[in-house]
């Protein structure tokens, strides 16, 4: 950082217009969204909306469908994040050695990440087909009765969860693997020389070094799971019996099936606030010491 920018620094002209545009666009959008959420704007009768104050927000609190969707979002996000991190970390530790095809394995792990999410949803819907799907066939081989993966309200959410885990655990693996490879090996060897057992080295030396990478990837996965939409739309459409309807999905239904865009935006605002609170909490738990480590 040898360059010192002064007020007349011409490099400012390179980014300021873009930053100003983005700022203006996001402020205008935010104000517009808040304005809409305080009215009763419906796509069915645009132009005849009236001011309703906080009615849409109060309605949310008394809306059992929204509350159930919120709870489901929390459940899905927690499970997806925890399982993906745990599974990903386990695979990273398992692969932590030199072997011939490591580069190839890395490339293959990219495939789920770059696969079109809609196609991932279709793939798993195909595998989970109750009559002809692969999942039930494999279960039948080991003598387990058929499962109605996407048709049972008690199981469908977990079927979507499995698809999400399949697509995003490789992302956790690759990111943590990169962190592991850039970590210094001296502390590990020092611990081994001091007579620590392999699990002690992993638990007391390696994991603390990976903490930052794990925390970042956990935040990323949490944000994305809260906003998950594609898999739900393709695999279950929120069904059966609303059993897989997350808050984001419910917001979509309210806007584009009921055309009640004011209520939908109120839901989106609540979801945003909720996300931010959750992230800040997670952040302060994951980075306790003033955030720099």
């Amino acid at each position: 950082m040898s360059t010192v920018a002064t007020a007349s620094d011409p490099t400012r002209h390179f980014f300021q217009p873009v930053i100003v545009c983005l700022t203006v666009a996001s402020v205008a959008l935010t104000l517009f969204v808040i304005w809409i959420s305080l009215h009763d704007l419906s796509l069915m009768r645009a132009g005849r909306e009236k001011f309703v104050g906080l009615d849409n927000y109060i309605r949310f609190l008394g809306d059992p469908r929204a509350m159930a969707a919120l709870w489901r979002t929390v459940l899905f996000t927690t499970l997806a994040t925890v399982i993906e991190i745990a599974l990903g970390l386990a695979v990273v530790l398992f692969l932590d050695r030199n072997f011939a095809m490591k580069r190839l394995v890395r490339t293959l792990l990219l495939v789920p990440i770059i696969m079109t999410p809609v196609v991932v949803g279709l793939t798993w819907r195909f595998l989970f087909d109750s009559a002809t799907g692969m999942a039930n066939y494999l279960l039948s081989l080991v003598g387990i009765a058929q499962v109605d993966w996407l048709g049972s309200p008690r199981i469908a959410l977990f079927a979507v969860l499995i698809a999400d885990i399949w697509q995003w655990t490789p992302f956790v693996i690759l990111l943590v693997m990169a962190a592991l490879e850039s970590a210094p090996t001296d502390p590990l060897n020092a611990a081994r020389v001091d007579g620590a057992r392999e699990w002690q080295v992993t638990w007391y030396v390696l994991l603390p070094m990976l903490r930052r990478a794990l925390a970042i990837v956990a935040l990323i996965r949490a944000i994305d799971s809260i906003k998950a939409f594609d898999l739900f739309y393709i695999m279950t459409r929120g069904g059966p019996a609303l059993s897989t309807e997350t808050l984001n999905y419910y917001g979509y239904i309210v806007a584009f099936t009921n055309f009640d865009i004011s209520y939908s935006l109120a839901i989106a605002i609540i979801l945003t606030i909720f996300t931010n609170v959750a992230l800040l909490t997670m952040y302060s738990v994951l980075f306790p010491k003033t955030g720099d480590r």
Partner: protein
Amino acid sequence: MARRALFCVGLLLLLLAVLFPLYWVVVTSFKTTRDAFAIPPVWLFSPTLDNYRTVFANRGFLSAFANSFIISILSSALAVAIGSIAAYGLAQQPAELRRSKEKFILSLRIAPALLFVIPMYYLATRIGALNKHWLLIAAYAFVNVPFAISLLITFFDDIPKELRDAARVDGAREFRVFWHVYLPAARGGIVATLILCVLFTWNEFFVALVLTGRDTQTLPVSITSFLTFQGIQWGALTAAATLIMLPMIVLGVLVQGQIVRGMTLGSVKG
């Protein structure tokens, strides 16, 4: 020796779990309907191209392919053009100022897409833009610009400051430095950013679902038309799915080193 065997078995299981779903979809796309639904599953079969014929006979699918192509290329090019200019400026700023701008840029990505898609949809219906390509190109450029800026900054940072200082001493104006020094030096990074933007746009579903009309449907939206009320045409569907993801897997392997870097920036940065 036993440990080594155990490791190989574990590795094999991992790769199987990762690749089997993909393999099964691709293989099914070459099966006849009877083979596709045989229980127990058929592992060896005589392949057929019937499903691909069905897909290519589907006008909607072909125009969706063209739409996806045009929209993702143009919006990504736009985003990278705007993003590289802004990133050049930001890369020259002191760390503090940069940090605050970068934080702002990243905060734009936390909000759910509903928040900006609904107002956009509403405005588009009022001005009759719902069936226009430029609406989607603009929407995706808006989404991709912050991402392009944050990724490009990291590439511009890799360029030694001496290059810029030398050019400045020779009397080059900032824009010349940007154009003749930075752009060529960061060529690889710019291409990678462009490819990642194309990848995201091509794969994106939610924005497209809301903002596309009959003439502007992109592939992910168009493929849902195979999920009809009469039942799912799995044969055609798997063929279409293969066609959609194949170009992205090729592109993805080309920029594999940058994907995790890009996707990390895509959401938050530590």
